[in-house]
């Protein structure tokens, strides 16, 4: 005699479970800042991709005097070379965002791999990798940036490498912690008991579990990467041939924009960087909040339940 429990929900109700779109919409409703952040981001991404096609002026096109004041033709004024700042901003968006993404992806790939291997295998491997991570963590970022830039030259590729070098350690530690948790779960031990290879377990069980959080943290990392890129360029260690926002600020400073009173050469790129970082942060933290249940603290709120009147007794049928 075989015995059957009744299913928890009837099959037809299961098929009607909320579609991806509905879950996304309910997520946005619970985290309005994510929606705002997302909109801002999409704006910048749009500008980065399509901007150069409708930027009013060229990247190196001198259209007026040095540090020309903002006017109707040039709403953000002109920089030290007489180039329209609004156009520069648009071109710069592409560079900044690409470098930010690429740097974060490098950090995620390197840090993620090390974190997974470290967290999964534990023991001596873990120790060795964490000691290496510690060394990198302790290296002063500024010194590292200067050394890399001086030895390998100033280029976009090197900026991306620097960002990866500096940030992979954070990723590695975060991922390692999560992998350690997943590794102890019963279904992973079951797979081991079955004789599954490590590769199989990592790719089929561990990575799918940490992927969402990994993605959320990569988004947050992009914000950091953009900030770092701006800093690198501002210090003059960036690629001199490419106009990123950091470069714009650096140029403005080195060409004495301040003594000219040309705030419009400094403020727009600075505000743009701040906005993008803030937007990434809003989306990233909202994603992290919803994916990591331990971050939820609303259940610690005061206990104010509602009093209701007694329901009417069921009339006998």
């Amino acid at each position, binding site marked *: 005699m*075989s*015995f*059957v*429990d009744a*299913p*928890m*929900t009837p*099959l037809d109700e*299961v098929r009607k479970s909320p579609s991806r779109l509905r879950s996304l919409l309910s997520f946005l409703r619970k985290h309005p800042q994510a929606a705002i952040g997302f909109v801002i981001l999409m704006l910048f991404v749009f500008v980065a991709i399509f901007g150069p096609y409708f930027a009013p002026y060229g990247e190196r096109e001198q259209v007026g005097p040095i540090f020309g004041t903002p006017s109707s033709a040039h709403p953000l004024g002109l920089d030290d070379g007489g180039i329209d700042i609004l156009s520069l901003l648009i071109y710069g968006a592409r560079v900044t965002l690409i470098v930010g993404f690429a740097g974060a992806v490098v950090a995620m790939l390197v840090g993620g791999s090390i974190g997974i291997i470290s967290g999964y295998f534990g023991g001596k491997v873990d120790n060795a990798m964490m000691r290496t991570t510690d060394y990198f963590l302790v290296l002063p970022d500024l010194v590292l940036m200067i050394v890399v830039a001086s030895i390998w030259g100033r280029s976009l590729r090197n900026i991306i490498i620097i960002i990866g070098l500096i940030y992979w350690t954070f990723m590695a530690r975060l991922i390692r912690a999560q992998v350690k948790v997943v590794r102890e*779960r*019963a*279904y992973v*031990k*079951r*797979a*081991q*008991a*079955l*004789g*599954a*290879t490590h590769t*199989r377990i990592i790719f089929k*069980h561990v990575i*799918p*579990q940490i992927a969402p959080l990994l993605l959320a943290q990569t988004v947050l990392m992009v914000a950091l990467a953009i900030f770092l890129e701006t800093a690198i360029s501002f210090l003059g260690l960036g690629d001199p041939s490419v106009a990123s926002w950091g470069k714009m600020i650096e140029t403005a400073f080195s060409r004495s924009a301040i003594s000219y009173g040309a705030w419009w050469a400094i403020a727009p790129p600075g505000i743009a960087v701040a906005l993008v970082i803030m937007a990434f942060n809003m989306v990233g933290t909202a994603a992290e909040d919803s994916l990591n249940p331990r971050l939820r603290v609303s259940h610690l709120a005061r206990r104010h339940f509602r009093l209701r009147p007694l329901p009417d007794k069921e009339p006998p049928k």
Partner: protein
Amino acid sequence: MTEPLLKVDDLVVHYPAGRKRVVHAVDGVSLTVAPGEFVALVGESGCGKTTTAQAIMRMAKVTAGTITYRGRDITTFSQRQMRPIRHEMQLIFQDPYESLDPRFRVRDTVIEPLQIHGVTDNREERVRAALERAGLTPAELYIDRYPHELSGGQRQRVSIAASLVLEPTLLLADEPVSMLDVSVRAGILGLLDELRKSGLGILMITHDLSTAAHYADRICVMYLGRVVEEGPAHEVIRNPQHPYTKALVSVVPQPDPDRATKPQILQGETPNPVNVPSGCRFHPRCPVAEARCQNEDPQLRPVGNDGQQAACLLI
């Protein structure tokens, strides 16, 4: 007498615990499981029953002793050598809520063992057959579900199906029902009982003496890394010989409130396996300990009737 499926001889599993201290998780355990036999390994936390199961599955390092599976000594088998054995020896976990990957559908969980062991023919058939053998009929109703859509009892059946799909000969079940509701437990245990009748050997780890009494053919009682008593379930429960078994049986709550029990409540708790008492390891808590119990370490000897054994100096 048929050759036992599993024979464990003087198994010892010690873990280092920093600075010359050793955790005596398992300190000399012997047991056998024959085909079609249901053996319960009973004890409180810290007695080493889970470590014993892990050692048998070769998921824990064996310090000494031998584990023989179907006549072959697997004690020092490497992971590669264990692969074909793992085909036949399956483990069912305690927690139905954590033992299924939440991202895998039921089909994916049950088919995984086949994928790992390279069984390619009739996979879908085998999955259905395993689900139905585990009581999930009709299989179509369950095969595409995610674990969160199933109840605890159903999830445990999926775990069992995943264990059955490779047609094992030996099942190790670690507290298979302790996290399930009472009304559901009998169904799962009944399923294990049927599997036993169809020839599987079952080694069940549990702290629940009542469950062991009802379903097991034989019970091994463990305390601090040793088997202190073992024998036919009926005898161990009704004629316990070892003082620890006697105390354990006496404190199990009875459903009939009028059945007066004289609970023999031992004081204190099981000592830390790092500090195993000298002589008989139970002597500090034993209600009838004598002076010599501090010095001599008793071994399992036949007592009572019917193949019962106990490790006590005073019997």
